């Protein structure tokens, strides 16, 4: 696994936490999946056909899911600034600190490349952190995709990749989840006039 792919993934995940525009964040996540897919396809001749499936799945994911989310953004074009969100630098500081802490806490788990292990854990953590520090529901949905890209990164560094059935099942589940999340995002925007998830805090005991 080249350093460019792993670093690209980590940096683009951090960028999603920082950027303001939803469409730019969607494109960054699409670029992540596309980069991973192309990498898997270039490795296919050396290792296993399973990686070809992974590559194809990732490229399809890079095209279909962002298109779905961009459609949601188009339907809810007038997005107000979300006042409850931390400033970009604050979000970045929290994300970097938390990702580094998690990455340090988790021991090696047996992949040949140690750098890939660290990057996979960091990207998964950044996906979860995206949902924590970003208040817009669409960014929280992007967090799913980032977290799954972290898993795919680890899967790609296995000699035969992940089993094909798991790959296909994973992408099916992801399409279902992101479609449902997009439907929720549109409905929440319609009801609240904003995609701010902090407005969804009526249910408390």
């Amino acid at each position, binding site marked *: 696994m080249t350093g460019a792919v792993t670093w690209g993934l980590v940096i683009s995940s951090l960028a999603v936490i920082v950027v303001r525009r939803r469409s730019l964040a969607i494109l960054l996540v699409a670029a992540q999946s596309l980069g991973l897919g192309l990498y898997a396809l270039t490795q296919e001749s050396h290792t296993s056909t399973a990686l070809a499936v992974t590559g194809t799945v990732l490229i399809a994911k890079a095209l279909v899911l962002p298109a779905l989310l961009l459609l949601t953004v188009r339907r809810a074009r007038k997005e107000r600034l979300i006042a409850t969100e931390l400033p970009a630098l604050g979000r970045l500081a929290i994300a970097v600190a938390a990702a580094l802490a998690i990455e340090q806490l*988790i021991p090696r788990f047996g992949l040949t490349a140690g750098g890939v292990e660290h990057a996979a854990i960091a990207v*998964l953590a950044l996906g979860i952190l995206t949902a924590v520090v970003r208040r817009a529901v669409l960014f929280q949905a992007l967090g799913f995709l980032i977290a799954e890209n972290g898993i795919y990164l680890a899967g790609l560094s*296995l000699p035969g990749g992940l089993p094909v059935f798991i790959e296909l099942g994973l992408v099916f589940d992801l399409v279902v989840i992101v479609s449902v999340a997009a439907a*929720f995002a549109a*409905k929440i925007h319609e009801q609240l006039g904003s995609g701010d998830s902090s407005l969804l805090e009526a249910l408390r005991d």
Partner: protein
Amino acid sequence: MTDLLLIAVPAVPLVGALLVRLPRTPGGADRMNRFGASISAAVALTASVLGIVHGAQGLQGSWFVLDRAGACFLAVIAVIGWCSAIVSPTYLASAGKSLFTARRARAWYYTAFYLFWAALLALALVKNLGVAWLLIEATTGASALLVAYSGRRNALEAGWKYLVLTTFGLAVALLGILILFVGLAPHGGTLATLDWQSIARHARGLPHQTALFALILILVGLATKIGWAPVHNWLPDAHSEAPPPVSALLSAALLPTVMLIAWRVVLTLGVAVPHHLADHLMLAFGLASLAIAVPFLWRPMAWKRLLAYSSLEHMGILALGIGFASPLATVGVIIHLAGHALAKSLGFYTAIPMLRHDPASAHRAPRGLARLSTPVAAGAGISLATLSGLPPSPLFFSELLILLGGIAAHQIAVVSIAAVLMALGFLGLAHALIETLAGESRGHRWRSGRTVRLTGRLTVGLTLGLLALSVGAYLLADSHAGASLMRGIA
């Protein structure tokens, strides 16, 4: 023949999901739903009987494993799914506005319902951890739509919270499965590497650190879906905002079925970690869930929200039973699972007439039901009395078996704390029971319409089931039954 029958278990409701979209009238969709639900439940119950009769060693196939524990779970999912499908038309008749356009709302409801039910039925059968994960994730999409079905702001909040928390939790579980797969790769590196039997056979060869790391990530990830504290935040909201038939399916079928997967992980991978850490982790989830739930059971709360916190309590008790890992506790877990499912679903079904006649009961504790409607009061009373563990309910026997199983496993401190928490939970629910039935009622006596009559019939049927379970608890309380329940996976 067995293969075909077991393929039909998830396939029939999948076909049902398509068929319910065909009729053009609400009445037609309801009739198709009743037909599809009856066939689906009959097939699943036949399979579960087969599993109980022939499953002493576990029936194995290319994709399934059906041991006695799995067969019991399958029967519970079949019964609760059928009951929820049968009461759904009554709910939909008075549901009003929904997340979907009025013309297609019913078709979407039934489609999501059947997809959710099919995934749950398949989950009780699969013999592979990776496939089980995919099915759990698949339940999320359909069930999140059902939780938010009413389209109200609170329902959207509950559905969104459920979607986000469980999806990220499952991502963590997937990382754990990947780590396990890496560790087991020298034994195949194919999908079959994640078969329960393969994990059980090779887990002892895993480095302790890898096994522990994988186990913690998988269990913590699954805990978000089961609703174990401290990762339970979605549970009270989703259960209280979902349509009552869906709340029943969530509480009585989804949570226990995902718990079955966690149980299988503990049994197969737990041997690879030292000092019974897997069992201790289950005990920690159990005590935390009980400790978090009990204070809420003492507060006056809207009916469905009270039932939701009771689910948290009972998932905690089940976690304790699994963590004690003794034959007595195992029998207790199975009885508790079935008793909780019947009583909890009855409680949620009584919410349909309750909400129709007193919409304010969505936000405040019900009172004086005995003066308002005898069938609804009977349903609510039997549900709460059973959930509180009042003798001779099956939950009284199952809780006793679990605690005795804990003593047999020499977990005296955990048993003592759990007994105190269960007693406090009992007092809280007993107080709620008295207020619900005999408190000062609001309004006039309810008309005995179709909804009330259906609640009465369900109360009779489910009460008979609860009584049968109480007898079963007495008959099954021997170590031989406990030891054979999970034999298929090891």
